[in-house]
């Protein structure tokens, strides 16, 4: 991948907060026009990485380029063409949807003649036309999140950063947001999305980078990651705790990749085990298996 085709490019980026190294030698290339998922457990450095892309956190080492602009020096130019949807709701609770969108249309330099149209379009994206003049404090959580997304799209950005876009939302609102994000990719907008929901990454991302302890430990399409790190099939063994302990012992003695999976032990690459695998339920390997195999961490 040549640099010019990258919407985002990080090389050797390090960020320390006192004794904690949040980002530890991060290399990342996000090609233009894809939906790129940054998957990792809490504390992997995803949010810090997101903040560095808007120069709200400054890297201690390394180089960052966004939309061809060098950060932090040219960050303001890159922010002009970039939309940001933060993890934490930072809407102005005192203002109405329309007022917030109008303020941000100005902050993002939408020309005066186009502002009203941009605000209407954003209200449409958020599906909030009937609540346009409602004060944010009176909106439901789902509506607020949709408004937060629409606010980041007010200026038709080329690049959108979504930090845990559906965290804490109910399944229906999550589905709505997923369609919205999918729509962005169809329009050719580059999307960088951090998430710790496996399903979200699996459904939406063309490419997934798995982050752990501040660096990328694996990268590829969801299917590639699954094949490479969890194989094709997984066998799930159910039983009483002592039985599960025994299976885990057997797995580690035999060098199999295994993990606790709720009430069961999951053994990966079951297709390679021939007759030696314990009896259990066979299922196709998924991204969660690959993720746990990679990071050693359970999700949620």
């Amino acid at each position: 991948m040549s640099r010019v085709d990258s919407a985002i490019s990080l090389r050797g980026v390090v960020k320390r907060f006192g004794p904690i190294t949040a980002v530890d030698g991060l290399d990342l290339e996000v090609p233009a026009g894809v939906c790129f998922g940054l998957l990792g457990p809490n504390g992997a450095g995803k949010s810090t990485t997101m903040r560095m892309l808007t120069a709200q956190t400054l890297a201690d080492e390394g180089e960052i380029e966004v939309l061809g602009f060098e950060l932090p020096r040219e960050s303001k130019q890159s922010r002009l063409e970039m939309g940001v949807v933060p993890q934490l709701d930072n809407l102005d609770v005192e203002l109405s949807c329309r007022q917030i969108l109008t303020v941000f249309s100005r902050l993002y330099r939408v020309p005066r003649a186009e502002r009203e149209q941009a605000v209407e379009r954003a209200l449409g994206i958020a599906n909030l036309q009937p609540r346009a003049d409602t004060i944010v404090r009176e909106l439901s959580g789902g509506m607020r999140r949709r408004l937060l997304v629409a606010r980041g799209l007010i200026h038709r950005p080329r690049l959108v950063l979504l930090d845990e876009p559906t965290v804490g939302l109910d399944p229906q609102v999550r589905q709505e947001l997923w369609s919205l994000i999918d729509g962005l990719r169809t329009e050719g907008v580059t999307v960088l999305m951090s998430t710790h929901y496996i399903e979200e990454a699996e459904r939406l991302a063309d490419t997934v980078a798995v982050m752990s302890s501040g660096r990328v430990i694996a990268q590829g399409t969801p299917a590639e990651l699954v094949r490479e790190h969890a194989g094709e099939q997984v066998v799930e063994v159910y039983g009483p705790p002592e039985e599960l302990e025994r299976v885990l012992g057997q797995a580690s003695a035999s060098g199999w990749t295994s993990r606790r999976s709720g009430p069961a032990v999951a053994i990966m690459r079951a297709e390679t085990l021939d007759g030696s695998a314990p009896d259990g339920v066979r299922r196709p390997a998924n991204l969660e298996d690959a993720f746990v195999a990679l990071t050693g961490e359970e999700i949620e």
Partner: protein
Amino acid sequence: MSAAAGPAGGVRRIGRLEPAALAGVMSRDVAVFGRYWKATTFSSVVQPTIYLLAFGIGFGSLLPHVVGVKYALYVSTGVVATAVLFSSAFPGMFNTFVRWQFQRTYDAVLAAPVDVEELITAEVLWISVRAGVYGVAPLLVGFAFGLEPVWGMLLVPLVGFVTGYGFAAFGVTVAAVAKTIDNFNYVTSAVLTPMFLVAGTFFPVSTLPPVMRTIAQINPLYHCVQLVRDCSFGRLGVADLGHAAVLIAFALLMWRLAIWQLGKRLID
């Protein structure tokens, strides 16, 4: 750099303190003000008016004249500075802290093409414009006590603006340094209250012991009071250039201090 993903020819370079960014941030303040103007205006106008009535009428009956003016008029011109102080330092502290820490508004603004310098400048500008306007209220009350309108009074909003700019930026700096909102109490009690008492608002600084007089000289509010009085009683002279210079220097100093202190906390 390619045209597809880089700053191709013709792309607008954006620089420091862009009017568009300042206007954008201030448009947010205007929208919020549109909702709360009644409460904001009430507190900014009523508080100094109460001081004015209490001291003007109360003390006014004991000492009819101070430095050659009717006491009520002496106070009504002095309280302009108090009005400016209240309507700039407090919003500077509270609005900043709430928007930064509780609502995270500043995080959202800084993700847009607005930098810290623009954000803080716009916030301080807005507060100081308001303070300049509110500062006129005591003069209006003064008219009821027989204060004579003079042309020089047209300068009072400007004096209020410059003073308000300094105190708004001071408030932003306090908000940046404070760990919690309760810490503002220290500043209110130990800094702001003595400051408005030792500014020649209610009694001439010349009546104070020498040490206090010296302290008053470095109190920006004292210079605001002097300037407002000289504007209001048609006594503008060379000394007022000195008062104006102190206020401008205070405003500039506090402005840079606010950007430095809040900036290093907003961008980590």
